């Protein structure tokens, strides 16, 4: 059937040789006008005929449902002529009634109504007394809906052969149409005989039953239906028949004549209209489907090819510096901690990390299968040096979604991921999900934090081993990453000092010398290994490169004597006037005995040379706090904070300077300013925590221990607990201080035990003080070379010499504790060491006040 959609499609235009007849539609089963005509099929646009698609003969188009048959007009016309002329020829040669009927059938069948009527007239004349011919003509007229003429033919037939069943049936049907039911019943009485269904069609009988029903003669209708049921038992399962019987049974007080309805699954799948062939595939349908399939196949093939030639590749830079990557001959620059997308065809590609200067690697882009391209959502990631941490996040959207599942990937230069819905793009906040289901999106993301932060992230998420593996991988690529190096050196030796030292040893031969790297190496070796060959090692380095300032500095660091150290540091400075570490070494020889004034120029020079290293500036600031006017320095620090408002170390120093200058009331403003500076970049919890820290620092620095105790009371955070402990110790509430729950590792800190010893000493509890000192010494013994040196000083039966004290290099605050302990342990040298402790006790952090009281007592 021609169809149009929004005026586009196929349509018949034109009607010629129209023929109509009233009859039952074979499709919808309703009485309607069936029309046949010649027409032309057009392809139409807005119902305007555009392309002719051929001439057609429409056969029996139902006026109700429009269902019809259609044949090619040319074939129809040819077949019509050939069949009719063939039948006519046969009739001319052998003019029997059968052949005459055949000619008339052909004429009617090919809609040659005029010729058929002419021929019918001939048949009436020639075979007027032939009952078979008359009966045929009767049925032919019924077929054409010409019931009056049909009736005449049936009557003619009955005149000749009143016994002829077909004629009686035809005449009866005519009478039923005319409402003469009793006459009709008499004509078809033979159909009510047992076994009639084996000889005749019982359609006329059913028609009579239906007519009785329409007239309200239900009893007679039921008699007929009962006979039909006896003859054709399967009719009892027919829906339409059952309906008719039930209608006539309504109001009758007799049991139903219908058999029990059988359930059949098949009936559910049978076409609703009897006689329809069901779903069939026609040639046009096949062409249409093929065209649609071809179009879709073409689209799919094109899309597949497009995917093949436009594979998603991402270059991820985990370095803090820009990386240059060559893919095939194309140069790409990728910014620090950023991602760059590109599209490459499938195949083998050469990738060259120009910045890293490593060997080229091959990137193989290949689909899992041809069809897999549509569904694999594959992404390839180039990770120069393997330093970027790539997270594969599975985000589930649901009413109660599970937490996001993140899988980190690091260490490889090439990755292939499947099923990535959001490669390096943010996932939506919400998605629409129907019916309470869930949806999972898979995102690739680069963790853009600094390597040291990533190290901490991995430490928390994946454990120490993974974090160390990551750190070592990054440090191999980026040995200058000091933050990561320090973090690594802090964590790795606690797990496996041998591995940590071996890893660091890998970098010792690199030139230029990585001073920080060597320092960490030296520290690990000195702390974790009793026997070291560090001196031999560095002497060998120096033999190879005797004027290397860094090596000279490093050699000085591990020298046993203060004099020896100074000699190497001086040599380093002489070898390279720009070697910050050399200056720092020289400064440290002075700082170890509290000679801040002497150390200050060296520290100033070192800080100048390494402006990017806050540690140098901080130690220089400390020297200045120890030596310069607090008010003036405070103003300088204020100026610096205007430039760097979120500088915590400077803020901390400013606070202690203001307190020293009795300008404590300005401290709140400083803390507020710091908070405001932090507001722009930090989360509120972090700001509150830092503000609390600074407040605690201010309270301790100003000696307001009661307030500090109050402030921290009930706060179980690590910082608050520490501050409460410090406040209690400073107030001499040692028993309460003991009960403060500090982290276990805090008690392993040797200076904690030593400080506790000093506190007990001040409290007059000598035995307890001794116990604490002893515990402190034991802890020092487990430390690095200088800590072990400090332990040795404390264990000596006699007070250590100035030279011996000077040869131990510790942080000033630690050294102040050491000096205070020596002062307490060796009363004979109390004067000298209390003086040293006072000089070294510069930072107003715990145990600043305790040491002050210890040294004041000595004096």
């Amino acid at each position, binding site marked *: 059937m021609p169809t149009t959609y929004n005026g586009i499609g196929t349509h018949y235009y034109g009607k010629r040789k129209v023929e109509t007849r009233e009859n039952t539609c074979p499709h919808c089963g309703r009485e309607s006008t069936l029309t046949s005509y010649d027409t032309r099929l057009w392809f139409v646009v807005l119902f305007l005929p555009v392309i002719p698609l051929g001439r057609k003969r429409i056969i029996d188009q139902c006026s109700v449902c429009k269902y019809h048959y259609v044949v090619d007009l*040319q074939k129809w016309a040819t077949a019509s002529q050939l069949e009719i*002329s063939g039948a006519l020829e046969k009739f001319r040669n052998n003019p029997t009634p059968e052949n005459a009927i055949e000619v008339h059938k052909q004429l009617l069948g090919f809609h040659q109504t005029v010729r058929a009527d002419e021929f019918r007239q001939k048949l009436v004349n020639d075979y007027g007394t032939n009952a078979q011919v008359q009966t045929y003509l009767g049925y032919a007229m019924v077929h054409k809906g010409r019931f009056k003429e049909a009736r005449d033919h049936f009557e003619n037939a009955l005149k000749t052969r009143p*016994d002829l069943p077909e004629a009686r049936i035809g005449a009866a049907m005519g009478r039923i149409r005319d409402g003469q039911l009793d006459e009709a019943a008499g004509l078809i009485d033979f159909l009510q005989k*047992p*076994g009639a269904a084996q000889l005749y069609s019982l359609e006329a009988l059913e028609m009579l039953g239906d007519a009785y029903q329409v007239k309200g003669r239900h009893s007679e209708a039921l008699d007929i239906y009962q006979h039909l049921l006896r003859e054709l038992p399967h009719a009892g399962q027919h829906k339409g028949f059952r309906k008719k019987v039930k209608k006539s049974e309504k109001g009758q007080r007799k049991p139903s004549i219908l058999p029990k309805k059988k359930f059949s699954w098949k009936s559910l799948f049978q076409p609703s209209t009897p006689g329809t062939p069901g779903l069939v595939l026609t040639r046009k349908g*096949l062409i249409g489907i093929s065209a649609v399939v071809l179009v879709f196949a073409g689209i799919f093939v094109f899309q597949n090819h497009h995917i093949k030639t436009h594979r998603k590749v991402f270059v991820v830079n985990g370095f803090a510096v820009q990386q240059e990557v060559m893919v095939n001959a194309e140069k790409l620059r990728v910014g620090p901690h950023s991602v760059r997308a590109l599209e490459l065809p499938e195949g083998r590609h050469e990738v060259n990390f120009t910045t890293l200067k490593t060997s080229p690697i091959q990137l193989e882009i290949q689909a899992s299968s041809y069809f897999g391209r*549509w569904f694999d959502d594959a992404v390839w990631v180039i990770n120069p040096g393997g330093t970027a941490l790539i997270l594969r996040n599975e985000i589930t959207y649901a009413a109660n979604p599970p937490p996001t599942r993140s899988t980190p990937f690091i260490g490889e230069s090439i990755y292939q991921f499947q099923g990535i819905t959001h490669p390096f793009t943010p996932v939506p906040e919400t998605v629409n999900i129907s019916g309470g289901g869930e949806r999972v999106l898979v995102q690739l993301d680069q963790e853009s934090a600094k390597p040291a932060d990533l190290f901490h992230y991995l430490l928390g998420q994946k454990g120490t081993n993974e974090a160390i593996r990551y750190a070592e991988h990054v440090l191999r690529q980026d040995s200058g990453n000091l933050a990561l190096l320090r973090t690594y050196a802090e964590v790795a030796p606690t797990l496996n000092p041998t591995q940590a030292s071996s890893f660091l040893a890998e970098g010792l031969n690199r030139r230029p010398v990585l001073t920080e790297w060597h320092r960490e190496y030296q520290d690990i070796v000195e702390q974790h290994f009793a026997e070291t060959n560090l001196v031999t090692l560095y002497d060998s380095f120096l033999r190879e490169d005797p004027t290397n300032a860094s090596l000279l500095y490093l050699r000085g660091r591990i020298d046993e004597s203060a004099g020896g150290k100074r000699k190497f540091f001086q040599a380093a400075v002489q070898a390279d006037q720009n070697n910050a570490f050399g200056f720092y070494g020289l400064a440290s020889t002075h700082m170890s005995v509290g000679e801040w004034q002497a150390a200050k120029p060296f520290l100033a020079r070192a800080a100048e040379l390494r402006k990017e290293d806050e540690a140098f500036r901080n130690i220089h600031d400390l020297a200045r706090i120890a030596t310069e006017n607090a008010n003036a320095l405070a103003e300088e620090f204020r100026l610096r904070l205007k430039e760097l408002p979120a500088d915590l170390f400077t803020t901390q120093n400013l606070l202690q300077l203001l307190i020293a200058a009795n300008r404590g009331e300005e401290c709140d403003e400083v803390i507020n300013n710091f908070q405001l500076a932090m507001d722009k970049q930090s989360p509120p919890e972090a700001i509150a925590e830092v503000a609390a820290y600074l407040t605690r620092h201010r309270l301790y620095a100003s000696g307001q221990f009661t307030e500090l105790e109050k402030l921290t009371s009930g706060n179980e955070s690590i910082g608050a607990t520490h501050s409460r402990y410090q406040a209690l110790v400073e107030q001499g509430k040692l028993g309460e201080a003991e009960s403060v729950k500090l982290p276990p590792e805090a008690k392993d800190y040797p200076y904690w035990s030593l400080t506790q010893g000093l506190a007990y000493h001040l409290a007059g509890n000598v035995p307890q003080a001794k116990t604490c000192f002893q515990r402190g010494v034991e802890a020092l013994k487990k430390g690095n070379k200088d800590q072990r040196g400090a332990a040795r000083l404390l264990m000596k039966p006699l007070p250590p010499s100035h030279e011996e004290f000077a040869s131990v290099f510790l942080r000033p605050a630690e050294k102040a504790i050491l000096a205070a302990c020596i002062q307490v342990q060796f009363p004979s040298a109390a004067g000298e060491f209390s003086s040293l402790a006072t000089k070294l006790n510069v930072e107003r952090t715990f145990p600043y006040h305790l040491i002050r009281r210890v040294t004041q007592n000595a004096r």
Partner: protein
Amino acid sequence: MTHQEFEALAGRIDAKFAGNSRALRLRVLLWAILGYIGLLWWFCVVLTLAAFMWWVGIAAEVVAFNVFALVLAAWGIGSTVSTLWVRIAPPVGRELRAQEVPALFKELMDLQQKCRAPKVDRVYLVPELNAAVQEVPRLGPLGVWRKRLLLGLPLLDLLSLQELRAVIAHELAHVSRADARVGHWTYRLRRGWETFIIQYLARPKAADEVSLRDVTRKFLNWFWPRFNARALVLCRTAEYGADAQAAAIAGAENLGSALVRTAVYSRQVEEKFWPGIWQEAKDSSQPPGDVMDRISCFFSTGADEFQPIFSKCLMEVTTNTDTHPCLKQRLAALGVEDILRNKFSTLVPSGRAAGALLGAAQDSLRSELSSIWKQESSTAWQLRHQLGISLQHRIEQLQEAMPSRERDADSLWDKAHTTLQLHGEKAALPLIKEVLEAHPAHALANFSMGRILLSEDDPEGEELLERAISKDETLLPASCDLLFDFYRRRGDTAQLNALRARLDEYDVRFEAGQKERQSVSASDALLPHGLAEAELKAVQRILGEVEDLRGAWLARKKLTYFPEKKLFLLCVEVGNRWVLTVEDLEQEAIGFLLGRIELPGQALIFALRGEQRRLGKKIKKFPGSSILKR
């Protein structure tokens, strides 16, 4: 495949595998596998498509694909199951137990051992004059065979104990050779294809429908005769094998004697006993309850007819469509033909095996079996009884309508035909003769008369059938079937071959001839019209009546089949050749001519500039085709 080709193929197979039944069996099994592949390949396509859709659904995470795949798979599996589902109904009969007929089971045990046949699971007493074994798989395609032995009570009544032993040995030989299994798979394949044909191939084809049904039909037409040729040869070979084994155990003479008795009485039972029983249906609404007693009595009668029927049975020949060899060949293979010819010069009483094997249970079993038959045939009996009433009413109506008037051919034939249906051939014969006397060319009367005569082995029937065919060619296939059976019974192989050739020719000519006449095109070869002067003039006169006719050309399509039935092609040029819109004029002219021109054959009249313009140009150029020019 034509009948002759089938015959030749069967002959070749018979010769090729003579004495090598194992190779033939293997070949039949391979063909059966091919048949199953042909039957099920498109289900595999459907299932593959379903699997692909499922994969797409999984890969693309589109549930609709999965649902579609499941529906497709369910439909495919459902269709497969419905096609392959073959329900083997249990035999209609009475299952026998060893306790009630110990003698029979003792004989059976003895024969099983001798035949080295596996144990028969169930034994049934059935109402047919026959014995058979069935092997039915318990688990469908997985096998685990159940063996059933079916023994007809009439057979036990007819044969002596020794003869029956030979028959049972023959059936057990089939079991030991696993012939029934091959038969079972062949049967399943046949039923599968039947289901497939009913469900798919026999469905009316919609206009312009595209389906693989034509391909499948072609495959079926190619496969089935080739498979059948092999399977039928195997069946006959198996019969010889089973006969030989049975003869070795029970004696060749006993087996031969059993075959003779069964052959003779089968014919008698089919032609006389059962028609007699069913004739009772017109008077009685219930089937008789003693049919087994009656058949037993029937065997005691007709001794004088035995010898002529035996002789006729020996005349029968085997054709390649038979599952069993003819009696003569089987007796010859057993080497007992001459002995039995002498032995059965008169009917030799058998001394009935029923008494010996069924013992005291005989009467009760006979009664039970009669009841079973009564129950099984009651529906068909009722229908037959009701049909009898209707037919009787029809006869009465015919007599009432024209008691005294001279009857026309139609009413005479109606009465004869109705009588034939109601009372059978004997009663209808005078009426048919009456029709033929009045109307000697009456096709159906000739056909019916011919059929009756051939069933009585009267060769006059041949002529009547030929007369019927000449009057109505559509009666040819049915007539050939009757003739084929007649010649086979007479052992007339020459006539059988001629008949095959005739059927083949008819099939080819009928189908191809129809196809040839369905269409015309410019590629058709042409012939001069060949009309006589007067005929041509008549045509020209009518053409001259068409005002706008510019020219007319007449030729004939060259036909390969039935060339005597001519097909004329009349091409007309209407209207001014420089005017494009002449279609209406052309149609009007053709419509005018169609009703008037009479050509001695089929005719196609078309316009020179119409859609058949290429054919028109070809006719225009054909020498002597121009019959009018203005």
